[in-house]
């Protein structure tokens, strides 16, 4: 009997999906990966409900109430939780708004923006409330591993996932560690 597959969930919080694109950049290595893992909740499967997983990969920082909720759920259901990419690690480009008050950001975008018709700040109850600052994941829940990069290259993801799945010590070669 073949070994049971490792169950992986992924999501993008305050990110740009670049890290997920990098994951897809694994190209033909994805076939190899598919032999060993099964995807649970992920933008790639469109499964909405998270079940208990071995591994959770999270891209993006935390910028709104829904992000916090999803992150806590991932922490509760994933045995190992990994922060992937600059935004998950330090807030990244979205955290550049931390230089300004939230009110000023909203007014700049929705009241003072060029060419706005009927300017108003969106407040539909369906829209998650923004946090006053963007935060990296480790400031909200415990993170087990960090993979830097904007995005991390497919090679870095491949090295990392292989070492993790085969219980090897994690060690990325020099050219696979970068913050941009």
């Amino acid at each position, binding site marked *: 009997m073949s070994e049971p597959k490792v169950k992986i969930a992924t999501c993008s919080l305050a990110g740009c999906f670049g890290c997920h694109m990098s994951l897809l950049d694994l190209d033909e290595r994805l076939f190899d990966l598919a032999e060993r893992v099964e995807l649970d909740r992920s933008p790639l499967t469109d499964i909405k409900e998270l079940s208990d997983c071995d591994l959770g990969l999270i891209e993006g920082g935390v910028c709104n109430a829904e992000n916090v909720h999803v992150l806590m759920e991932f922490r509760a259901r994933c045995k190992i939780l990994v*922060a992937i990419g*600059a935004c998950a*690690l*330090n*807030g*990244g*480009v979205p*955290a*550049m708004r*931390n*230089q300004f008050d939230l009110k000023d950001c909203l007014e700049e975008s929705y009241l003072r923006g060029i060419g706005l018709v009927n300017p108003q700040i969106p407040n539909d109850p369906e829209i998650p409330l923004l946090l006053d*600052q963007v*935060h*990296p994941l*480790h*400031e909200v829940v415990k*993170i087990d591993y*960090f*993979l*830097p990069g*904007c995005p991390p290259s497919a090679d870095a993801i491949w090295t990392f996932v292989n070492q993790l799945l085969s219980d090897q010590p994690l060690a990325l070669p*020099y*050219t696979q*560690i*970068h*913050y*941009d």
Partner: protein
Amino acid sequence: MSEDQSFMLDGRRVPFQDGQTVMTAALAAGIYIPHLCFNPEFAPHGSCRVCLVKVNGRVQAACATPAASGQIVQNETGELREIRRGILQMLFVEGNHVCPACEKSGACQLQAVAYYVGMLAPHYTHFYPRRPVDASHPEAVIDFNRCILCELCVRASRDVDGKNIFAVQGRGIQAHLVVNTTSGKLGATDFSLADKAAQVCPTGAILTKHRGYEIPIGQRLYDRKPISVVGDVATVAESKGGRRHE
């Protein structure tokens, strides 16, 4: 001065001359000790603490410790690597380092030293300080978000350029870099790109205007080889992706 003065560094005999520090003697022997505020052309500053080594069992800054005969110095140990990593992480969370949006990325000494000590993430809680960007000068821009207070620009401007344009004001967490003019703006000074002060910043805090992202990713100074091999950004010529004027 005796000819055979030496100390031991990670089991290797390192000769030195009077007046040399553990750092300068190691450098002369081709041994890399990670550092940020040290630059061989200037008097040691001892502020960043990245160069911590163990001298006879005691943790000391290599750049500020005079070399002495018979010293037993440890440099590349797991313990020191961890201390250095912690210092780097503190430097990162204390400022705002958005590397993907920084023109110096790939040729930044702060980043390169962080890679060298294996820093994967900043670990600590981010301060997200609110600091200005000064673009008032026609040729250069200062992004205070990236300043690590190494005072290399201060030293270069005062001691080499004779202009005394920069200073560090305030103490402890209040310490910050200022420009010595009434307006506090670089544009109001006689700062020039030919200044030594324009060639020494180890980070992306002082940048030349109109030249962002010139070198493609993969070919930048520290993209392929670590800083221990490549050397400091201030010692590498501009044409090779560093800061030094030829």
